[in-house]
């Protein structure tokens, strides 16, 4: 039973390695393996969520090496929740990619699975160095996926992302070394115990390490001073790849939450995170307003969703973390869906692609504009979709704090401006018919797989509204669990039952 924790790692690992063993050109087989491995993540994640919902923190000692020494995987409510979100987004993106993106270059399916391996591992790991390794796994796969389907713009974007993230990884290692030399351990739970008994002369080194970690995670999450690499990269990427990438920034956010609550509860990064989050929101919305392409608009929407998320996280209290946990699912699905719809629009409009200017006419077509409308509603956070509830929860959480007024002003203005930019983009794309390109284009038919990919993400968004009650209760319980790191520590350091008797 407890071995199930390994499944989110083993499934993508097998799904990534198997296609490398088969003969080149056997694309249907690669697809079958990829789809099966990704689909398998959904029931796995649901089982893990229902297991975590009980409130028990499940620690799995890989190879039964006891906790501070071996590699530990830890499943709590937040980790299980993120696994589920990742599984849904991955399925949507993969289905959309079938027959289009995966023919643009080789090894798409292997890279996709390795990306999932890194993401799932980063959510599950209970060890700082292990987190570094999983970061590298997901980054290496992301560089390759980014340059997939080669074009000069994508190659340049991949180089930029690779250089920036390699510098980030360097800083990660420096932070790791500082923390290790201050506390003598790298296991989250063990660090939490040792932090309490740290000699005063080590405290500076310890905190320096903590702050550097926060900087690294902020870089991965694309928060303001460190987020300029994101729009160019996500905007240039293939639609399905960009949809999967919308989970990547959340890995940084979840790492901030995890390290901030378990290892460094005394660091109090809240105020700094709040300023960065507000600035990120402003930058993201400005980018949305000024975007010249739908894919760039979606990339800036990712930044906005990170900013919104971090406004809630910055509180580091129960209401804030609960709102963040709920919003992370909604925001990820919404931006992923917008990327897919933008990619579809780019295909349909031929030469005009997803440029926000007058193009061919969309007469008598309903499905694509409707999909855009729904994605836009989700991204902007309007009712009836869950973004509205999430923003309400975020605003409710900041209401008691000292910075309520500024937060309200920025969050509400950002929402208004994102509605404006999404509405303007939609009316340009669907209603503005260019003089030179006035002919009605023959729309290529929707491929069933692509439709089901978009539909799956939409179903996830709708599910978050329909089951908003249970979902929010779960998020609230997850926040409660995060703020009680004692249980986490006990589970990891004593709970060696996970090793598979």
């Amino acid at each position: 039973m407890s071995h199930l924790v390994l499944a989110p790692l083993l499934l993508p690992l097998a799904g990534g390695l198997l296609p490398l063993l088969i003969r080149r050109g056997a694309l249907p087989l690669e697809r079958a393996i990829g789809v099966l491995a990704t689909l398998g993540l959904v029931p796995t994640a649901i089982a893990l969520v229902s297991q975590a919902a009980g409130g028990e923190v499940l620690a799995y000692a890989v190879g039964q090496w006891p906790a501070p020494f071996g590699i530990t995987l830890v499943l709590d409510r937040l980790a299980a929740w993120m696994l589920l979100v990742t599984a849904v987004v991955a399925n949507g993106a993969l289905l959309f990619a079938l027959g289009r993106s995966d023919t643009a270059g080789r090894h798409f399916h292997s890279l996709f699975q390795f990306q999932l391996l890194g993401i799932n591992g980063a959510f599950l790991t209970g060890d700082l160095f292990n987190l570094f390794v999983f970061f590298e796994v997901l980054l290496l796969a992301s560089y390759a996926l980014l340059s997939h389907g080669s074009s000069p713009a994508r190659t340049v974007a991949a180089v930029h992302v690779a250089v920036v993230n390699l510098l980030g990884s360097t800083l990660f290692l420096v932070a790791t070394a500082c923390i290790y030399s201050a506390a003598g351990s790298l296991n989250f739970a063990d660090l939490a115990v040792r932090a309490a008994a740290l000699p005063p002369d080590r405290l500076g080194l310890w905190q320096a390490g903590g702050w550097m970690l926060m900087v690294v995670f902020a870089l991965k999450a694309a928060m303001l001073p460190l987020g300029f690499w994101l729009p160019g990269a996500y905007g240039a990427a293939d639609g399905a790849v960009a949809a999967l990438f919308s989970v990547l920034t959340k890995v940084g956010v979840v790492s901030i939450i995890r390290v901030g609550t378990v290892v460094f509860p005394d660091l109090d990064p809240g105020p700094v995170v709040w300023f960065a989050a507000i600035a990120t929101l402003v930058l993201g919305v400005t980018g949305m307003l000024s975007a010249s392409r739908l894919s760039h608009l979606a990339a800036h929407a990712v930044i906005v969703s990170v900013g919104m998320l971090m406004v809630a996280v910055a509180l580091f209290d129960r209401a804030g973390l609960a709102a963040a946990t709920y919003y992370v699912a909604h925001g990820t699905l919404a931006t992923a869906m917008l990327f897919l719809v933008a990619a579809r629009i780019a295909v349909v409009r031929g030469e005009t692609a997803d440029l926000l200017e007058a193009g061919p006419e969309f007469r008598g077509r309903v499905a694509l504009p409707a999909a855009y409308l729904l994605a836009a509603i989700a991204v902007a956070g309007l009712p009836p979709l869950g973004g509205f509830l999430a923003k309400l929860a975020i605003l409710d959480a900041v209401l008691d704090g000292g910075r309520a007024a500024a937060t309200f002003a920025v969050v509400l203005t950002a929402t208004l401006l994102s509605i404006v930019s999404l509405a303007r983009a939609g009316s340009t794309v669907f209603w503005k018919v260019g003089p030179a390109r006035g002919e009605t284009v023959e729309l290529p038919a929707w491929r069933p797989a692509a439709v089901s990919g978009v539909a799956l993400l939409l179903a996830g968004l709708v599910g978050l509204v329909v089951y908003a009650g249970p979902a929010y209760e779960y998020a609230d319980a997850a926040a409660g669990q995060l703020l009680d790191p004692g249980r986490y520590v006990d589970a990891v350091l004593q709970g060696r039952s996970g090793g598979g008797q």
Partner: protein
Amino acid sequence: MEILVAAAIAVLVAAGVYLSLRPRLFSVLLGITLLSYAVNLFLLASGGLMVDSAPLTQVPGPYPDPLPQALILTAIVISFGMTSFLIVLAMRAVSERGHDRVERGSGEEAE
């Protein structure tokens, strides 16, 4: 010993930061490589520096912390892989664009 290692790390970091801020991909690559060397040395120092003793717990006497050495081994493998990937990516960028400048040129913005 500490001063020697610290000076080595400092020189490597300084050179690495300078090179990675250069406008050409080749220098950036070299800069990142130097930075990763510096980090590996820094990791070694994080366990405390000790000379003339093996990192084996069975041997009597004081022994240096073996864990940072394991970390370095992993970090070396990872940074080696990353650097070689970045080199391939950079070569592809050069062959597609005809130059190895880091920034986007005019006309490269739109894809």
